[in-house]
């Protein structure tokens, strides 16, 4: 309906291969970014930053990473939390052990370490598939949890087992206010999102999807499963690792292994299922959805309860949350396995064809 595509013809492959070939889409995305950078900081209050925006951004990043592995390469991982943890603790160690280590490098190095661990635990994927692999990745989860819990070297021998970082700065710009934190995360997320998009639309991305869709055929046209799968694990864990480091450094400030428990892994998995497997945008949808829903429920349920004269305890809200999540997962798997992203793109198609149905 809003689309006016006449005259938007492409005279070069470069133009035809852009991420957003349609002018209106480019405009929309540009506008969105502008809002995120300029408008949001003006309107958002501290709570919005701490409770919604920053978690949303960081978890989007993690989901993005996981989506590359699960959604694009078809290798299910239940150990995402572990890779986040590795990113976080590695970054932490670089910070505390190396004098004057700049934040950004610490984050990237954290990601690098996560990559190593990710590839290590990805090796089984060369031999084992599907369910077996899923369980194998749990090994990463529990082993890593245990490591950071029990091996005090990683926590810099902190007695409490919890570690913390303070006075972060990005090339001299202090990152201490919610606003700066938000912008810092935003910047990183945007960069990674672009990079990820480029990867999945380049030949490596096609190799991943080929492995996902039909691994035998992929092998026959010369794709090496080893390479495809391990790169997927590497890229995925790198992004997830950086996200983990951000989560710890920027969002939490001080944390312990529980912050990256198996529940986190599941949460991220849900994000990409609800958001959309094999879709960059879906990762953001999913994250937004799962970050906002609990907050919404916490506000809404008690209110609703009050209306019908039942007082609803926080515990009940928590349980309701579990049930709703569970229900939604099943719902999406049955009704729209490609998640919100697919709904979005169908809606978009409809708009382009409007007023025609098809």
């Amino acid at each position, binding site marked *: 309906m809003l689309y006016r595509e006449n005259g938007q013809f492409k005279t070069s492959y470069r133009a035809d291969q852009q991420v957003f070939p349609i002018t209106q889409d480019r405009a929309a995305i540009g506008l969105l970014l502008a809002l995120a950078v300029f408008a949001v900081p003006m309107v958002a209050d501290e709570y919005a930053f701490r409770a919604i925006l920053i978690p949303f951004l960081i978890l989007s990043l993690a989901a993005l990473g996981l989506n590359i592995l699960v959604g694009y390469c078809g290798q299910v991982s239940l150990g995402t939390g572990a890779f986040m943890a590795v990113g976080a603790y590695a970054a932490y160690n670089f910070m505390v052990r190396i004098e004057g280590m700049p934040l950004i490098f610490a984050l990237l190095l954290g990601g690098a370490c996560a990559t190593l661990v990710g590839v290590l635990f990805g090796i089984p994927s060369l031999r084992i598939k599907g369910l077996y692999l899923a369980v194998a990745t749990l090994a990463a989860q529990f082993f890593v949890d245990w490591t950071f819990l029990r091996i005090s070297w990683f926590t810099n021998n902190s007695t409490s087992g919890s570690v913390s970082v303070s006075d972060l700065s990005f090339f001299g710009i202090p990152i201490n206010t919610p606003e700066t934190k938000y912008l810092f995360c935003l910047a990183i997320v945007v960069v990674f999102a672009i990079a990820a998009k*480029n990867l999945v639309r380049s030949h490596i991305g096609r190799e991943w999807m080929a492995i996902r*869709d039909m691994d035998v055929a992929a*092998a026959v*046209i*010369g794709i090496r499963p080893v390479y495809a799968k391990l790169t997927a694990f590497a890229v995925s864990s790198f992004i997830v690792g950086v996200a983990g480091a951000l989560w710890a450094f920027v969002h939490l400030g001080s944390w312990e292994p529980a912050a990256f428990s198996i529940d986190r892994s599941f949460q991220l998995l849900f994000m990409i299922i609800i958001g959309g497997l*094999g879709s960059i945008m879906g990762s953001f949808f999913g994250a937004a959805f799962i970050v906002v829903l609990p907050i919404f429920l916490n506000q809404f349920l008690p209110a609703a309860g009050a209306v019908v004269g039942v007082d609803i305890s926080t515990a009940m809200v928590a349980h309701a949350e579990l049930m709703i999540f569970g229900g939604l997962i099943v719902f999406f798997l049955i009704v729209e396995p490609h998640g919100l992203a697919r709904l979005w793109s169908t809606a978009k198609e409809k708009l382009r064809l409007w007023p025609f149905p098809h």
Partner: protein
Amino acid sequence: MNTTTTDAGASPSTDGRKIGDVILDVQGISLAFGGVKALTDISFNVREHEVRAIIGPNGAGKSSMLNCINGVYTPQKGTITFRGKTFGHMNSRQVAEMGIARTFQNLALFKGMNVIDNLMSGRNLKMKTNLFQQAFRLGAAQREEEEHRAFVEHIIDFLEIQAYRKTPVGRLPYGLQKRVDLGRALAMEPQVLLLDEPMAGMNVEEKQDMCRFVLDVNDEFGTTIVLIEHDMSVVMDISDRVVVLDYGKKIGDGTPDEVRSNEDVISAYLGTSH
């Protein structure tokens, strides 16, 4: 790539190109799954530029034969010689690198991708840029994408599927999916093309089209073609030499006419319903 072709209807496939020496030689291949014998001591060869058919009733082991040649299965016995190099077993990657491509009997397209990307994936061996370049679409990566896109577009033109370029392959009718499958193989610029029942499940027109494309490929790019069919009639028209398998054994080998008059073959075929 040069997209000029000849019309199969107008001229038999043999003129215009000359059949060369043996390019692929299969010796004493035996394959078994657990106890089940799929292939027993199969030997035959393929000459450069020829159209070589492997026929036989369903379950005769045709597909298994193909899977041995392109490294999906590892035969227990026997060797495969390609361009003078002899292998007991190769992995699919090596086979692909040596220039052997194939299509699949029951479609093995990448459902999640559109036609262009399916064909592009056939170019992966030729794409060289590294992760980093791709992540940031640095000049090289961008250029690579464009070059290979151009190549792929020629195949799209050759197979006359312009109208479906950006359609997810899942949404295409069966006949077109088969074409895309062929296209993906062509994108590899193969020297030998293995076709696993390219006409299976097609209606008459689709079969004719497919025949034309197969012959065009063989004719235009001099691609050697090994194709499996259980539908005799099709094979006899388009192939130069035919191997006949039955229950994993070779029961005939020769020109279509020789094979047609071969007692075992006849009985094998009368024995099965077609």
